[in-house]
């Protein structure tokens, strides 16, 4: 009897192990990119679906529709309700206005997941129409080819071919603000349609700063250090003073501010970058300052690389007085801060002339090989997605900059900037940047791997107290090896 029980338990355990290990795998893949499970959401409320399915309503609403509905898959790298929800709402609105089309939004956990899935989908012959991919990997997107060696993305400018209106939607590509247009223009061609675009700004807890006798947000590194000295002297001050995520984007921003290049050939803009510079003076100056803040107990390191949540929580919990962050969360901080939250420019090195901050964010890439009807639908959707009203709504929802000048006009007319002055800081900072290769930012191959090398080295410097120059020399060797291998496999 007891042996039978033992055997039964063993069987149950094995079955459970099999089940759980398969589900673990699922979770693990998602977790790798740190987000929710990929979910497919068919956009379009009830109305849109009824319309599209060609019921009674459809005949009245769209008599021109031949009954054929063209599907356009739009793969988005957001999984949070606000930003994914925005994409779904706009897709539904587009579908309602264009009954012949059905834009279907699919959510992925990260940009890399979207990109890898798109490459595999191209190979298996069922590519999506549009994908959402991040700025620094523009080189990687341009290099992506299918099995026959043809690039998988098509230039949006080429596809629009000078039209000012597609399927009744006004083309807004030419209204994109210059910071974004300059960033994404490679070899003279504007390939992808910008969507979420931000820059780094600093959020200041003015209650703490005022208590420490500081009336204006610190503008330079020296100002930050001085402010931290004052805050540390407070009796009931926060445990730290400042934080930001250990993400390579902040390093790249600082290099842009100081006019240093990250890659050769003008940051990879006059020709492909074949070399990276992780030991430049600008890099050393930034890391010296960062390490100094850390050693003085002013900089709070959450202990995780690319930790957006931890740093944001530390700021909201008033464990630090200042947070250098993406402008994408301006609205979030304005809504959730229980103190006076003021946005300001990212602090810069007072020892060198300020050159300019760069953008961050992502664009929508259009896959090549669609028939004209589908392609026009995709183009119309992209232009609809960033039309003045939508661009303004997107900015108000998040804090990403209004991507078109027409969007800015809508917001100015509404009086939005007077109402939420913090929202204007990102656009102002980008407008203040000089248009040089350094402040445009680098276009590098294997940017994910190189960024990983940078953040790992910085973590080592912050936590393990290793020498900055020695550690960055190693990182530089690793990054250059990584880039040269990428160029070997993918360069021309």
């Amino acid at each position, binding site marked *: 009897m007891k042996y039978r029980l*033992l055997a039964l338990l063993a069987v149950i355990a094995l079955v459970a192990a099999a089940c759980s290990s398969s589900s673990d795998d699922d979770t693990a893949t998602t977790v*790798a990119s740190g987000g929710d499970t990929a979910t497919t959401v068919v956009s379009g409320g009830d109305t849109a679906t009824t319309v599209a399915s060609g019921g009674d309503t459809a005949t009245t609403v769209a008599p021109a529709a031949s009954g054929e509905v063209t599907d356009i898959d739009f793969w988005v790298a957001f999984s949070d309700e606000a930003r994914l929800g925005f994409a779904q709402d706009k897709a539904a609105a587009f579908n309602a206005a264009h009954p012949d089309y059905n834009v279907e939004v699919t959510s992925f956990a990260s940009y890399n997941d979207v990109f890898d899935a798109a490459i595999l989908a191209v190979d298996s012959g069922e590519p999506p129409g549009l994908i959402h991919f991040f700025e620094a990997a523009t080189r990687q997107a341009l290099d992506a080819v299918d099995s026959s060696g043809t690039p998988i993305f098509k230039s949006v400018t080429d596809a629009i071919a000078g039209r000012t209106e597609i399927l009744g939607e006004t083309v807004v590509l030419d209204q994109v603000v210059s910071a974004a247009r300059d960033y994404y223009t490679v070899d003279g061609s504007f390939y992808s349609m910008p969507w979420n675009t931000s820059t780094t700004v600093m959020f200041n807890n003015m209650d703490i700063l005022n208590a420490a006798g500081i009336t204006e947000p610190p503008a330079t590194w020296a100002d930050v250090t001085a402010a931290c000295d004052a805050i540390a002297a407070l009796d009931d001050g926060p445990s730290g003073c400042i934080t930001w995520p250990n993400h390579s984007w902040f390093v790249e921003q600082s290099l842009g501010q100081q006019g240093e290049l990250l890659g050769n050939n003008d940051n990879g803009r006059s020709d492909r970058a074949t070399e990276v510079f992780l030991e430049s003076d600008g890099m050393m100056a930034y890391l010296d300052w960062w390490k100094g803040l850390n050693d003085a107990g002013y900089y709070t390191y959450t202990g995780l690389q690319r930790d957006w949540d931890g740093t944001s929580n530390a700021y909201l919990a008033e464990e630090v007085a200042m947070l250098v962050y993406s402008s994408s969360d301006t609205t979030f901080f304005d809504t959730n801060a229980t103190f006076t939250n003021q946005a300001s420019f990212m602090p810069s090195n007072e020892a060198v002339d300020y050159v300019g901050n760069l953008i961050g964010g992502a664009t929508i890439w259009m896959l090549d090989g669609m028939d004209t009807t589908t392609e026009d639908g995709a183009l119309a959707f992209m232009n609809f997605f960033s039309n003045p009203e939508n661009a303004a709504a997107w900015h108000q929802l998040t804090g990403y900059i209004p991507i078109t000048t027409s969007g800015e006009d809508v917001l100015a007319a509404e009086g939005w900037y007077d109402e939420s002055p913090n929202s204007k800081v990102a656009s102002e900072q980008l407008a203040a940047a000089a248009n040089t290769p350094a402040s445009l930012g680098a276009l590098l191959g294997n940017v994910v791997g190189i960024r990983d090398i940078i953040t790992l080295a910085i973590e080592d410097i912050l936590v393990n107290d290793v020498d900055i120059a020695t550690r960055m020399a190693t990182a530089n060797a690793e990054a250059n090896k990584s880039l040269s291998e990428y160029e070997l496999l993918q360069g021309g």
Partner: protein
Amino acid sequence: MLFIAGLVIAAFIGVFYVWRNTTNPSIRRYGVGSAVAVLGASVSPIVMGQCSFAEHTSSVDKLLGYSLMFGGAWLALMGARTFWDRADGKEKSSAAVAGEIRTGGFRLGVWVPWLLLSPTLIILIVFLYFPAASTFALSTKLTRLGAPKSIDVCFTNFTELLIANPFLLVAYPLIAIGLIYAARFWVTHSLPGTLSRRGADAASGVAALSVFVALYAMFSPGGLDANGLLHVAYRPVYLNTIIISVGIVAFGMIGGLAVAYLAFRPIGGGSIYRTLLIWPYAISPAVAGVLFFMIFDPTAGIFTHVMDTWFGIDVPNYRESAILAQSSIILASGWKILGYNILFYLAGLQSVPLEQIEAALIDGASTWQRFTKIVLPALSPITFFLLVTNLTYAFFEVYATIDFMTKGAPAGKTSVAIYEIIRVGVNNGELGRGAAQSVLLFIAVIAITMWQFRTSGERVSYGGS
């Protein structure tokens, strides 16, 4: 030239193998032995186009080439040995075996068993052997997901994980093997119960540890070598893997047995209690990571908050200290596997012979003596089974837990082999490197399992008479 030299050495290995493993071998047997060895040795160089012996390759590449050749020769000889043993009458021929178990089914034809096995075989080939072979092929390439071309790099993906000195690479394992044989020699030449035997037993333990030390010394600490090859700092990854896996297995199994032993006692509501104990097993590694993150996170953690507000203790950030970070991974992963171990130990405890315990009780054995002398040996098959499954878990399923809790922090101190494989191979898209590291982990798991089966054969008691 180097390849030919390798074949000649392989031929000698064949002769040596025949001499060691067969009684009264004939000249013909020696000939066949060396031919089999040469054949086995030439497989890998032919498949890989003798790339490791090309002019520009480093001595470590050549060393790896030779290891693969001689490994192939050894495997071929082991295969040949089964035939020789049968011919020598040491092993029953298949006809004799078939005669013993002759049933109606097999008389239908040779193809029937194959037909019956085919679903399993197809699944194995499609989902196991083919991906495994692809991984081996990938590990010799420089390639990326979606890249239009890939470049054959021979053993570079492996060489860059090892130290650059070929002599030390040979010397370290030889020293470890020498120590093991010396300890074994001492054990067999000392009498049980003497001081000498106790010393010999201790020496065996040290010798076993020397294998881990040798491997540690063989993995590269990183940096450029004389040939300009940038090595991967794999030594810390190896060390992290050892610390974290041993920690998880020790915590999971000792804790599992302790809890199961306590829960096995007759208590009111015992069945509900025992069911609840098994629950953590139903949680995925990712969720375990999130739970412990929520408990210990320095900003938002429950534990941190409670310690701070109630006791005024400032809990340090677990992700900034190597010991704390590794301990928290061990705690989270060990806790997750705890339920599984409890389940098996609870079942196993039911099969402990009550008569023996009663007899020991009458003889005046204490609780501790009864536990160590009767319960533990009776549980040994389950312990062995759990050791294998827990090690597999600790090697392969901790990625999600680590990714949520530390992402390898501080500076790679919690980056274990599987985490590194996914970071390099999937996140950074360096498929060849990731594949090479997978092959390494694959070899490690096979070696550990083989070692477990060997050593546990002596210690595991399956009961019965």
